[in-house]
């Protein structure tokens, strides 16, 4: 790994500044707010609860539904409200990323709704959303065997680096967002866009996993802060 300093002054394995807060909304069963770099993410969790959408429910377990949404004012050019193809994909893989940690066997025919709102976007919203959602799930008291955490690595100027900013994502050569269950290191989300050799890919995974472990500590701190002040 190189000693190169990145556009925003970070080292190759340095995260952007992160702030996580649990329990920021009154109505939701659980909630969290996360800032990382210029990203601002708000997550609310409702459930496990009944749902009138019967075809989504299962007789032997609770299910989750995830909605990732960007505010119209979260990006430079106003985004039309409502779902698009990108948010549909992210919603799907975010549900896949969180589901392995949930223990909903005792909640048959119930649903957990996870609402991820991107209030402001600056690269890396999907990992930030997963990280915040996991905190909100704990805040909601949803039984889980681990707190899923997300982080991305990528390739910029032929170097594998951690946690791409918006500029690095646009100008960079590859982006590899992942999510893991930190207790086992199992991977629950993995995407890769861009150009990587097999070796670079392995470096990226290792670096992103390290990043995940650091973010995991911040998740726990946020939760402890919430519980200790209660």
């Amino acid at each position, binding site marked *: 790994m190189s000693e190169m300093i990145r556009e925003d002054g970070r080292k190759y394995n340095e995260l952007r500044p992160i702030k996580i807060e649990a329990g920021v*909304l*009154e*109505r*939701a069963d659980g*909630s969290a707010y996360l800032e990382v770099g*210029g990203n*601002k993410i*708000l*997550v*609310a969790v*409702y459930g496990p*609860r009944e749902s009138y959408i019967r075809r989504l429910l299962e007789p032997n377990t609770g299910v989750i539904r995830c*909605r990732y*949404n960007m*505010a*119209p*004012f*979260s*990006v*430079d*050019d*106003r985004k039309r*409200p*409502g779902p698009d193809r990108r948010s549909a994909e992210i919603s799907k893989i975010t549900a896949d990323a969180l589901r392995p940690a949930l223990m909903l066997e005792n909640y048959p025919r119930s649903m957990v*709704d996870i*609402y991820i*709102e991107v*209030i*402001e*976007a*600056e690269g890396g919203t999907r990992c930030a959303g997963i990280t915040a959602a996991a905190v909100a799930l704990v805040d909601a008291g949803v039984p889980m065997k681990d707190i899923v955490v997300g982080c991305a690595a990528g390739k910029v100027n032929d170097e594998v680096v951690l946690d791409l900013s918006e500029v690095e994502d646009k100008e960079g050569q590859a982006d590899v967002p992942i999510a893991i269950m930190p207790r086992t290191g199992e991977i629950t989300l993995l995407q890769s866009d861009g150009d990587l050799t097999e070796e670079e890919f392995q470096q990226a995974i290792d670096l992103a996993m390290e990043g995940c472990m650091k973010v995991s500590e911040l998740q726990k701190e946020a939760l402890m802060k919430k519980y200790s002040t209660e």
Partner: protein
Amino acid sequence: MDIVPEITRESITNLIINDKREDGRALDEYRDISIETNVISKAEGSARVKLGGTQVIVGIKPQLGSPFPDTPDLGVLMTNCEMLPMADPTFEPGPPSDDSIELARVVDRGIRESELVELDKLCVEEGKHVWMLFIDLHIIDNCGNLFDAAELAVMAALKSTKLPTASIVDDEVVLDKENTFDLPINNEVAMCTFVKIGDKMVIDPSLDEERVASARLNVGVTREGRICAMQKGGKYPLTKDDIFTAVNTAISKTKDLIEYL
């Protein structure tokens, strides 16, 4: 369906008959209000308002567009509201509900009818290019009285809005994002919302108060104390006295609200 237990209904109603409220407020007292502006760096204007537990974020995004044919020299305002499913267990994902449309339209009416945005200064080239301001209301926590919180947030966001300078060079619009100007605003407006419980008109209703109320009345008032927007809601009627009393109260209460801006 959002059913209120009978016991809640009775306890709230009995309190209000005696001029009292669950949270100790007077019938004409607002919950705590906080307003932050410039909360979204990528938006040209933004605000977050907390009214008790209710939270609303507004972002303003400008776009160059064509004027309406009958007002070729005026800018355009577009107010949208998303009652996010995160804000309330009964809100659903999907296209705006009728409640959401009503909220956006009533809030918009307050802004529009008070003529506070100087739309003629948003004209870049008459008949061809004007600024369209997208006012996006994001409801993130519903603890009652979204109308007043939303109107405050829109007002605060508009006052914080800075637009890039636009000029016409060789028949094309050139934007200078370094040199911005404040959105020209020449008035202020606030909304004061009442619900009727028993035979009392109660200001700034909590969620439970909204649920047990028989009717709702929104009153939008300008800085000069002029009425610019009103809307009755709810399943039961109001008397003329209910309305006249509420309007009179609203004219004084909105002065206080405008202080927050």
